């Protein structure tokens, strides 16, 4: 198989995470929130990972945040599936601190990699990867 036709690895749509992916397909960023201790829960868990409560509900977030840190991928290494990312090089893998508190791993897109800075304000956009999977990525907010 030619490298250009390699498919990127997709998430497994586990039962506990399915509401997240369903919402993403509707262009909505949601996370679980504990109805007892009010903690946000990310990544998806069967129950609250702070207090153990099973009263957790999916809540829509603002989709806004800032870059906590990042790296620029200039070379794909390791697992065979990584090769599928070669056409995207260079690209930014970042930790995004959402305004509500949780930290996500994602990509900063829509900006030259040289312009990405820590503390940069970003907003979520969704990129379709398969019929079911839309990945939440982040673009710089226009100030």
């Amino acid at each position, binding site marked *: 198989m030619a490298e250009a036709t390699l498919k990127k690895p997709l998430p497994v749509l586990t039962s506990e995470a399915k509401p997240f992916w369903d919402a993403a397909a509707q262009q909505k960023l949601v996370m679980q929130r504990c109805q007892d201790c009010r903690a946000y829960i990310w990544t998806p868990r069967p129950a609250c990972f702070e207090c153990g409560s099973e009263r957790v509900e999916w809540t829509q977030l603002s989709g806004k945040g800032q870059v906590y840190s990042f790296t620029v991928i200039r070379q794909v290494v390791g697992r065979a599936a990584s090769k599928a990312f070669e056409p995207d090089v260079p690209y930014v893998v970042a930790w995004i601190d959402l305004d509500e508190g949780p*930290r996500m791993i994602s990509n900063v897109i829509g900006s030259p990699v040289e312009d990405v800075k820590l503390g940069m304000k970003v907003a979520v956009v969704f990129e379709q990867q398969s019929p079911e999977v839309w990945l939440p990525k982040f673009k710089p907010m226009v100030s």
Partner: protein
Amino acid sequence: MSIRGKAAIVGIGETPTDRLGSKPGEPRKSSAEYLSWALHLALADAGLRLKDFNGQGLGVTIPTAYPQPFWPEEVAEILGITPGFLFAGGTGGAGSVSLLGQMGAGIASGMIDLALGIGAAAPFAEHHGGGLQPGDMRDFEIPFGTMGANSKIAMVMRRHMHEYGTTLDHLGKIAVAGRYHASLNPAAYLRKPITIQDYKDSRLVADPVRLLDCVLPANGGKAYILASPERAKKLRKPPVYVKGFGERSNPSYGPRAGSDALVMGIKDAGKVAMEMAEIKHSDINFLQLYDDYVIVVYLQIEDLGFCAKGDLSYFERTDFTFKGQLPIQTGGGMINCGQPSTAGGTLHVLEAVRQLRGEGGERQVPGAKTGLVSGLGVLPYGKNLGCCAVAVLGTEP
């Protein structure tokens, strides 16, 4: 409950490390061969026989690329041991330090009085496939094009530089000290001394992580033998006692959905271990810190409490060589000696034993009586390292 002084290391075995087997026709050894080699070196060092381990403890570190759930038992089959207490080192690179705690507790309970801790891997010579990934990594990291540990640690390093003004001079000092010690260690793999400028000039692997920040994957096997103090006293080498042990897995500093990525579980594991050992920082003669990356060594020195978080001046004024105020990585660490998967961390236990026996050769820390060893493993979502283990070892119980 304390295990202070209730178990001692009485034998060590370490094969040479190599990177052979990736090219066709290159001579190669299997994990089984490295395991057996390490075991026989440790038996010779301790003056024990294979039979002595029947009905006793066996602890095996589980390598990352060999997804066979019965590996510890298979190792017993390979070596020809019938253990009475089989321990699985399942904390990744922290495995060998974790096993000091697990097997030390087993010995302290009186159920066994001898235990073998062992691990090997041959990532260049054996190809088991990629193995399974943890769910969060599979579903919420890899689809975004993360490139393993390099990406994660690059983000940790960049954030530390941003928050505290840490520079390549601060970090390079750790790299230079490690290589200097490797130059004095005949068993090290990378032995040519380097300068801070060499560190700065090394290739960017995952910006800002450079080649000389990174550990060196290798083939090899490592083992140690733990015994009760009564049994240890009858053996040929001076006992090296487990004085303290602490471990934290899945640590979190702040909310679990947004933990402080610059603090490691070593902070609490170290505190527990030092309290068990009843020692102060000034009692510690050297550190052997798990070193998958230079920044990870740096963070541990902070989190163990040798200085405040972000105290750059501490790193500027401290001599980290074996002659200095705080010797670290006295054999060169995994960065210079090689990392056979999760067995790699055992290197730090073995170097601590050599130093405490006075077998450090040209790199011997003068008068070493107490040392601290750490192990780290697993890179969980949104955090730095997920399994953190610390042991305090010493010449006295």
